């Protein structure tokens, strides 16, 4: 357990070094001083991008682990909540109206979208603490936000705007600055703290809702923590990187064989593992010999689809 955590921290440091080094330009260490103009590449471009990749990866990994524990379903993903589609729709509106030129507006719209989706979900689920209402509510919100996004693309004032929206939706960490880190870091930090508070309740939920309640779990409080935590982590992630799927689905599965199946035991490894995975992936898309940089969201989907298939086949083998 401790060894896994230390191993993941070491891996994260290595991934961070790779991420700072990776790019079209090689910047030797002796050029990292303020006098050398190449230091700007490191300090103003690669460092914030690396930090953001670690933050977003940790946020998505942790929220995936909490989602799977909360819904007691190994195929659950933070995207199911409607929060990421809500955030994406908010960002798409900002692009649609051409507000994206101002730095704070696109993240602001994305977070507002996530917040509205979260509030609607809380309204739909009501005070019942019921998982079924919650899951179905999330699916409905996802599909509504998806259709509104499609509507915005089809009605876009110019082809440039619609292509801008489509490209943004694919998700990437290209050209991010410290300002993006400043927006994302506190929100992701608070959201992750809220999610960490669910750990023990998730363990109790292993025995089902009735047993968990009899053991002292307050289902309404737990649901509020989950909703607020996911809205902040996923909302801030989408606001700063667009939609990056599958991290929340894959990472908990990758750490379970090492950390065990107890839901609380995989939270920290999933956060660290998510950070490692996304930082590595974001370095590799920069190193890939493509004309324009491969979008991170696409790279993750290309990994994620086959991984999902592998999971299903593994489950089928176990059921057979």
């Amino acid at each position: 357990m401790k060894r896994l955590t230390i191993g993941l921290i070491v891996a994260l440091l290595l991934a961070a070094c790779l991420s700072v080094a990776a790019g079209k330009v090689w910047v030797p260490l002796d050029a990292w001083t303020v006098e050398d103009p190449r230091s700007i590449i490191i300090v103003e471009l690669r460092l914030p991008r690396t930090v953001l990749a670690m933050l977003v990866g940790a946020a998505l990994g942790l929220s995936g682990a909490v989602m799977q524990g909360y819904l007691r379903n190994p195929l659950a993903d933070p995207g199911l909540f409607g929060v990421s589609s809500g955030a994406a729709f908010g960002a798409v509106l900002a692009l649609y109206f051409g507000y994206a030129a101002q730095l704070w507006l696109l993240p602001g719209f994305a977070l507002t979208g996530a917040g509205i989706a979260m509030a609607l979900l809380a309204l739909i689920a009501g005070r019942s603490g019921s998982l079924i209402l919650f899951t179905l509510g999330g699916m409905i919100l996802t599909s509504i936000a998806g259709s509104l996004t499609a509507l915005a693309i089809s009605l876009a004032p110019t082809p440039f705007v619609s292509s801008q929206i489509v490209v943004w939706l694919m998700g990437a960490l290209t050209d991010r600055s410290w300002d993006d880190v400043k927006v994302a870091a506190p929100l992701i930090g608070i959201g992750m703290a809220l999610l960490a508070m669910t750990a023990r309740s998730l363990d109790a939920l292993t025995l089902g809702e009735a047993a968990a309640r009899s053991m002292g779990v307050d289902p309404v409080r737990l649901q509020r923590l989950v909703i607020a935590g996911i809205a902040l982590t996923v909302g801030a992630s989408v606001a700063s990187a667009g939609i990056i799927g599958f991290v929340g689905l894959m990472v908990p599965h990758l750490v379970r064989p090492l950390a065990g199946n107890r839901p609380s035991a995989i939270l920290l490894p999933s956060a660290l593992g998510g950070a490692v995975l996304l930082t590595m992936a974001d370095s590799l898309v920069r190193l890939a010999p493509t004309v324009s940089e491969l979008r991170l969201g696409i790279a993750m989907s290309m990994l994620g689809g086959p991984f999902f298939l592998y999971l299903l086949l593994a489950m089928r083998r176990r059921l057979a």
Partner: protein
Amino acid sequence: MTDLVADAVRLTLGGRRVLDDVSFAFRPGRVTALLGANGAGKSSLLACLAALRRPDRGAVRLGGTDVQALDRWVRARAIGLLPQAADVHWDIDVQTLVGLGRFAHRGRWGESQADRDAVAAALAATDMTGFATRGVERLSGGERGRALLARVLAGEPDWLLADEPLASLDPAHQLDVLARLRGVAGSGRGVVLVLHDLHLAARVADDAVLLKDGRVVASGAADDVLTAPAIAEAYGIDVEIGRTPQGHRYILPVAR
């Protein structure tokens, strides 16, 4: 230790009156069986006792306090519930599963010696010590049932409520578990069991509450409740009641 009292409990679910004016004082140190045909309201009454459902009228009181008003951690330490559904959603090992029984006892920073002792005692009591490191998905149905019972025992609740705790067990382990539950009652704690098997109820119960359509047909000492006329009314069957030469009561359905 005080009684767990159902006081004129009425419960309506989906427009149907599932419990109507149910009153009974469950006493510590005794095994009480909740009996009745399917849909009589046994599990609903158990859910009210465990504070999982709030009665529309009446109340369940523990030491004079409405169980709904108790602090959830105090309540969780006082009343342990073994639900009917044998849900274990992740493939955790038996020791971890039983350790969850200490959920309401544990401090924020890990388990104490008392936690470890309670888990070890619960494993031993259910004959599961040898399975401590085995994943629940590699247990048989009966082994899983015993592990789940061990989870509740590990919490050392004053009241142990169980919905069909014997359903998936073979006869040998049924007798073991019955003996174990009798032992819990013998240590002064209260045991309330939903049972569908009249035969086992006759064997284990000190007290019984016989329900039909949400109402109490008969309640009190099991020997007085489990009479042929009361059973005929509650279940619509004729039974033969007798004693074996060793003195065990038995109830044998003979016709409907």
